[in-house]
């Protein structure tokens, strides 16, 4: 079942040197699955995520034939209608919890606000719901955390709080933009398994934006590989090690590996034809 259908998405930024195309004609669909978008910095993966939520502000220009969320075209919606989509139907976890939590509100206030904005719950209902949600993301002393301010939290805690806040309105789609790259490996696994259980339990669609190929191969179902604003390859996460495109191969080979020591790492040599080739469709 298709939750989200993106057709021919472009993101453009006019600059003094002419129009810069950050995303160039990307199409994909998302079902109840874990879809990864990987690529280097500047490949347009984060812009794709933001464009879906219409978070790109002028002078940036977003065009698409269609971004349809279960039949309703998001491109046609007004800013007011979009507010009902953001958070409630599609929510987004950003990269760094330090910059996405409000520093002068307690964690509790922020989660309760996020919940009451989208439902008609009373304050005390919202409080219990927020507590439950914090426990769901494995925060044990939830009552203390509710009273705490963001600066009192570690990075891993902050990211889990962000996930709790994003999942409390029970959205259909979660966009996670490098949710674990600011975290340690040990905490990373924890956060991922929390996202994983929540996504599978609730039957959500997940768009997981990352630059870490190994992580994505482990964690997701399907992978879109982006290069200079286009999708160059689509493959099943299980088969990522057998990817065909020279760019994907180059990325995989440039990783040092514990099980296969090498004197010298392979360096990616870029072919200009990669960025000119038309985008591969990620639609099913």
């Amino acid at each position: 079942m298709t939750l989200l259908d993106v057709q021919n998405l472009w993101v453009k930024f006019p600059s003094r040197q002419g129009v810069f195309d950050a995303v160039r004609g990307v199409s994909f669909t998302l079902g109840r699955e874990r879809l990864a978008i990987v690529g280097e910095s500047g490949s347009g993966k984060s812009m794709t995520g933001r464009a879906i939520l219409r978070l790109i502000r002028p002078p940036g220009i977003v065009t698409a034939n269609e971004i349809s969320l279960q039949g309703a075209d998001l491109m046609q919606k007004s800013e007011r209608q979009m507010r009902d989509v953001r958070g409630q139907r599609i929510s987004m976890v950003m990269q760094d919890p330090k910059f996405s939590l409000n520093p002068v509100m307690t964690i509790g206030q922020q989660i309760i606000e996020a919940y009451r904005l989208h439902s008609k719950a009373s304050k005390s209902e919202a409080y219990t719901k927020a507590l439950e949600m914090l426990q769901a993301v494995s925060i044990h002393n939830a009552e203390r955390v509710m009273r705490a301010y963001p600066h009192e939290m570690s990075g891993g805690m902050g990211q889990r709080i962000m996930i709790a806040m994003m999942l409390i309105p029970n959205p259909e789609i979660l966009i996670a933009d490098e949710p674990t790259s600011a975290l340690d490996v040990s905490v990373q696994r924890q956060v991922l398994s929390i996202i994983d259980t929540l996504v599978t339990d609730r039957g959500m669609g997940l768009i997981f934006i990352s630059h870490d190929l190994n992580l994505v191969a482990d964690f997701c179902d399907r992978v879109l590989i982006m290069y200079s604003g286009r999708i160059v390859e689509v493959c099943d996460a299980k088969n990522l090690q057998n990817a065909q495109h020279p760019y994907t191969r180059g990325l995989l080979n440039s990783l040092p590996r514990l099980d296969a020591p090498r004197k010298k790492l392979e360096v990616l040599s870029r072919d200009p034809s990669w960025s000119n080739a038309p985008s591969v469709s990620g639609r099913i």
Partner: protein
Amino acid sequence: MNMLDVKDLSVWFGTGNDRVDAVRDSNFIVKRGASFGLVGESGSGKSTILRAIMGLAIDWSGAISVAGKPVTKTRPKSFYKSVQMVFQDPYASLHPRHSVDQVLGETLYLHGFKDIDARVVKLLDDVGLGGNFRFRYPHQLSGGQRQRVAIARALAPEPEILLLDEPTSALDVSVQAEILNLLTDLRNKRGLTFVMVSHDLSVVGHMCEHLAVMKNGEIVEIMDVATLREMRASHPYSKELLAASI
């Protein structure tokens, strides 16, 4: 011969109730020409060890000796000629209003070199940048190029030991491979000794022969890379770390 010998090193910040012991009783030895890795999660004190060696963390006890000579509290200029450091974030470690030429030229001048002009050209060449980068400013460079400039600056006084604090964690994987190859080449060419901090075990496995696993300011295990590759860590924490990074 031991290039770097760290004995009972403790580093702390603050006094009284605010005192935080960032590193406690750490011991390790790095042989000349070897490459030593420090791994652990953030806050485990791995960068603090490097900063204490460089003199950037002031409160420390224990004994550090470089090439047999003990390091004193106030370090002479000759110390900085033999030990240099490369920092994590290439975006923050270069002065935004100094061109590459100024950055390298000033370092060379401070270390008393005479033929600065020729040396700047040579340094840029060594890190694979070439002459047309010489008069650029940091904002005109990519992350990988900036890290190359930072490495060139560290190489300017012709050091024997290079302390690398997560040199590639701010870079893309494709650029990471370039920088790691550059570091390997430089080490072979100049006979450098590396101490490398990283949270990425596979990077340390690629670059180093020995590594120390740190937790809460203490070195819990020192092992060689063969042990790491065979996943035969003995301490429970290093086992956990190994399992998490595969």
